């Protein structure tokens, strides 16, 4: 892999007009990655999902070089119908379109930040890989007091014309004071067996509101890793919803720093898995200041030999008095072969706090099925009704009515 990395790195550097210093920084990141390799189960955070092994078994040898000189044709059929929205379109890792047609142009700024390096407090070797190979990186700045009229949908599409086995993406967002953004990530892959490595960084200033919905629904054979870093100032609110379903392997990591007082974070997720899919959500909520609040709800329905992992951590600093932290994960195992692993973690250094977590996993309740069947439903219908209700609970947590309906329709959940 090492030779391939060097070769592909040199190729990708050639196409970019970078200063000597930037090349050196990228080189440094590359060396870091070569040194550490893909995360494996010896690392505590990857205990339940050995990415190194998963890549080896599913993809084999990776290649990293993408030629971004030529453009791809944007296939408009993938766009969401019935909801007016702004668009960013990624095709095979290349930004093809940025379109804020419904917004005031002077309120949103798009800044090229390709030269800056992302540094996260709890990073892993994948952030080095990302830093070494991302070519273009934009920062989207929503200016003070501006609230986007329509949601922004980011289309992540890949197709069979993809150059290499690995795609690295990076986007930064800054929400200035009193601004708000609704953001939907929609994955649509037709490529075969690629590794997608996505890093988002959000900076939420005072009173700003971010709603991020990540939807990975369409069946595909890809392996995905997505990392969201959210820094929150006073009174800001972040809401994250993850639908984890389509990819072969997917790991979503949310690292949320509640730095300002009264900042709050909501994180909800649904795993709906079949075949031998293996998905993970790992969340770290850092309560750094007083009166901060976090709420997490994760529900999983696992069929066949699928496997879901939830690692959630609530960290409370000694200054963060009056913290309210809550975390609940529930799983239904439908098949003998399915598996649910959880590591809900509390690390608390302040005494005047209210923190709790709960985790439960088991089969569908036979008594409930019996009840429904005695009312005339078939076994299959009863089962579907129960699962529907189980997942509806999480979807109902979505605060935006438009998007709630969109997601409900997408995953076929009835009220």
């Amino acid at each position, binding site marked *: 892999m090492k030779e391939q990395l060097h070769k592909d790195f040199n190729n990708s550097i050639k196409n970019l007009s970078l200063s000597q210093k930037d090349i050196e920084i990228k080189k440094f990141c590359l060396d870091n990655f070569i040194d550490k390799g893909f995360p494996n189960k010896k690392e505590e955070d990857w205990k339940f999902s050995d990415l190194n092994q998963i890549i080896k078994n599913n993809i084999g040898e990776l290649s990293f070089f993408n030629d971004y000189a030529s453009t791809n044709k944007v296939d408009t059929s993938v766009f969401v119908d019935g909801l007016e929205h702004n668009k960013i379109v990624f095709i095979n890792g290349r930004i093809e379109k940025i379109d804020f047609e419904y917004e005031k142009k002077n309120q949103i700024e798009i800044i090229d930040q390709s030269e800056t390096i992302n540094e996260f407090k709890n990073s892993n070797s994948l952030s080095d890989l990302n830093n070494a190979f991302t070519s273009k990186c934009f920062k989207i700045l929503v200016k003070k007091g501006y609230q986007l009229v329509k949601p922004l949908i980011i289309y992540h599409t890949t197709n069979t014309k993809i150059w290499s086995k690995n795609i690295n993406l990076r986007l930064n967002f800054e929400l200035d004071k009193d601004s708000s953004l609704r953001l939907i990530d929609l994955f649509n892959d037709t490529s075969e067996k690629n590794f997608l490595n996505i890093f988002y960084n959000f900076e939420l200033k005072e009173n700003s509101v971010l709603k991020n919905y990540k939807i990975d629904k369409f069946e595909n054979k890809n392996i995905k890793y997505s990392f969201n870093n959210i820094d929150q100032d006073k009174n800001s609110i972040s809401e994250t919803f993850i639908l984890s379903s389509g990819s072969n392997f997917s790991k979503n990591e949310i690292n949320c720093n509640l730095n300002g007082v009264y900042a709050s974070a909501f994180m909800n997720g649904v795993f709906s898995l079949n075949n031998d899919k293996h998905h993970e959500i790992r969340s770290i909520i850092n309560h750094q200041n007083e009166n901060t609040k976090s709420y997490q709800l994760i529900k999983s329905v696992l069929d066949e030999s699928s496997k879901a992992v939830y690692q959630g951590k609530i960290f409370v600093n000694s200054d963060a008095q009056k913290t309210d932290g809550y975390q609940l994960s529930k799983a239904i195992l439908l098949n003998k072969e399915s598996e649910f692993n959880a590591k809900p973690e509390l690390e608390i250094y*302040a*005494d005047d706090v209210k923190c709790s977590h709960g985790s439960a996993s088991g089969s569908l309740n036979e008594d409930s099925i019996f009840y429904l069947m005695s009312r005339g439903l078939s076994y299959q219908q009863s089962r579907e009704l129960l699962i529907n209700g189980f997942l509806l609970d999480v979807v109902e947590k979505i605060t935006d009515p438009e998007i709630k309906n969109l997601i409900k329709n997408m995953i076929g959940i009835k009220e």
Partner: protein
Amino acid sequence: MDNRQKEINNLKDYKYGFSTDIENIQAPKGLDEDVIKFISNIKKEPQWMLEFRLKAFERFKVLKEPDWQKPKFPKIDYQDLYYYSAPKSMKNKPKSLDELDPKLLETYKKLGIPLQEQARLNGIAVDAVFDSVSVATTFKDELTKQGIIFCPISEAIQNHSELVKKYLGSVIPTSDHFFATLNSAVFTDGSFVYIPEGVRCPMELSTYFRINASNTGQFERTLIIADKGSYVSYLEGCTAPMRDENQLHAANVELIALDDAEIKYSTVQNWYPGDKDGKGGIYNFVTKRGLCKGKNSKISWTQVETGSAITWKYPSCILKGDNSVGEFYSIAITNNHQKADTGTKMIHLGKNTKSKIISKGISAGSSDMTYRGLVDISSKAKNSNNYTQCDSLLMGNKCGAHTVPYIKNKNSESNIAHEATTSKISEEQLHYCQQRGLNPEEAVGLIVNGFCKEVLQQLPMEFAVEAQKLVGISLEGSVG
């Protein structure tokens, strides 16, 4: 005079902090094959036992000290320890209590453990372990009548060789983790219990551990075998003198429950926790593991952890037999600079297995407390159940309380439920108690005892009273 006064003041905080001036035989300092041979030789062990030790030592040489845990500690120099220390008077083992060194009797009396049988009202058989050797076992005759074997493990190696050979290392193999392997190589004494088929042990069995000599590591090994349909309740208590240096205590406890047998194992751990600034104290790195080997068997761990500078232990149950049950009840209290990383592992292998975990953690001062546990339901463990509840109470904003559960469910017919909360004592509760005439400390004591009640109830009567007092003492000075 000043020193004397200081000592008295110190003893107020930790009343077991005295040391006994007694002549010792010690193994040469350090750890190598010769020391292991020395220990084996002095214990007059058979060849297989020496081989068991040397095999463990071979393994130990390639193992590295673990570093993943939360409580960090300065590196231990394993060559700077005495691995064997015994009162000289024990060289030729006294045949009865009358021949026992009066100084030893005095020590245990001071600890509140009278060894004279007539002095006991409640009939608990005690095996007293002083540094590296067992000094006395009481009520032997009465137990022998029922066929129960309760003796120091060094005696069992000689007299009940077959049993020991069969079960020793069957739950904690010599190739286990760092400290367990070290123990396998150098363990000196401990208790051995065998309850024959169908016998319900008529009294509580108890071991009392005491570290006396300085620079000594205590490595005891306990092996309890409950044969088919038998029952035993076993208690363990520990204390050590106050010393400025840290001392290592790395014990191994193995429990084996055959068909329909039940073992109840209770610990009140009150090793010297170090002084207010975190100087000294015992490193308590213990491996405790129970195997529910037969069907319908049950193992129940109850622990009250108030002592030690660092406690690092996870009493575990391997639920191999069908319908077997594992239970874990724990109270861990840390104050000043104490650190505790404790919890349990419940490994469900058999069908219809059940486990229950109740853990209560209280941390005060500048201490740090972690619950770390694993519940693993394997794909064959049909219809299994686990319930876990871990609650933590924080007093002050310099301490920490953490919960790190690992939950693995590979069986769709099994259920796992886990709950955890962290909070502080509410002002309302305190106000209510104080309004009724309690001072703040008494009020906290009362509330904490209520918080721990679920676990305290699991302890045998005499222990429960003791433990309740201990809970109060451990938290002294943490309010206000």
